[in-house]
């Protein structure tokens, strides 16, 4: 609240902006980075899964991602509903959403315990659990970014966010682009 609050206040959102101190949404939806978007239809069913969701171009130089195709796709779905070409078929959705790797499931618990210890003022005891979460699920950037932000990353983890991005191919491949049909034109083929 202390960190995110000023940003929310400055944005004057017309939608609900919620505070998720315990990373509940990430846990429930298996999200591994931010910004991540999910589309949910009127009946409460997911029609597009977790994917990178930039809604402006402020990080375009870093990521190489243009927000326009994703925003156009989003508008198309709002207007067309289930007829939109951007609504993903159920089998593909299930494939993208389901995570059954035991290590990933255990990583979530390690991270949760680390968070509890940190919030109890026990950073030194939290670090081994944050490290274990990162080891069990190295694809989860939330585990890295949150842990690094809570301490001196170089001292406690021997690395930094920038170094980790470079290790993974640099900022232009850091985010996997959204899997949109006809993404280059912003319209489905």
């Amino acid at each position, binding site marked *: 609240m202390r960190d995110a609050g000023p940003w929310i206040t400055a944005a004057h959102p017309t939608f*609900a902006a919620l505070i998720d101190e315990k990373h509940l949404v990430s846990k*429930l*939806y298996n999200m591994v980075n931010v910004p991540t*978007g999910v589309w949910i239809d*009127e009946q409460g*069913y997911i029609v597009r899964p977790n994917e990178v969701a930039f809604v402006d171009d402020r990080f375009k130089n870093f990521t190489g991602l243009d927000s326009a195709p994703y925003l156009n796709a989003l508008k198309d779905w709002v207007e067309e509903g289930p007829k939109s070409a951007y609504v993903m078929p159920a089998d593909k*959705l*299930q494939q993208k*959403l389901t995570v059954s790797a035991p290590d990933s499931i255990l990583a*979530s618990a390690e991270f949760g315990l680390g968070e509890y210890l940190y919030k109890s003022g026990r950073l030194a005891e939290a670090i081994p659990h944050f490290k274990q979460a990162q080891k069990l699920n190295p694809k989860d950037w939330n585990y890295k970014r949150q842990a690094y932000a809570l301490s001196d990353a170089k001292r406690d983890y021997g690395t930094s966010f920038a170094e980790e991005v470079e290790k993974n191919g640099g900022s232009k491949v850091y985010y996997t682009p959204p899997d949109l049909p006809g993404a280059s034109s912003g319209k489905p083929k």
Partner: protein
Amino acid sequence: MTLRIALFLLVVTAFVSAQNLRSTTVIYDDIATAVEPARPDASQLWTTTSDLKRATGFEVKPQGVCRDELCFPLPKVRRKEFIGRDAGKQSFNLTAFAQLVHQPVVHDEGAGIWYFGLRADQRQGLASLRAPDFTLPDMEGKMHRLSGLRGKKVFLITWASW
């Protein structure tokens, strides 16, 4: 001399037991509760059934281990793995139950904390494509429930200030 050694060992045993029975924190559904372990076992967590209810909301019933409408039957042949009797009270093996319901558990022995993650039933929402429900507060503390938005399209987007 033999008696002294025997007494010393007795004292050490009592000390170790007391250490293992020291107050423990259980984190379940991200809520922390202090409990008194019912059995000195560093590898498993046995609680009294009253602590089970307090820490998790679950109760041992004839049909299984239940919380509201949710009920997990215990395999009859394995009942002793889950339910015991310690110091005259019924006890329950919460770590064995976690294994039964495919729930990840992390134990920090030094800190005296057991963390229980999401059970399989809590993770299954995604396979059905039904958006997992949650309730979270806004800046003013007003609670918002995702399922309260039925009838509207929802664009759920997450970000962090780190």
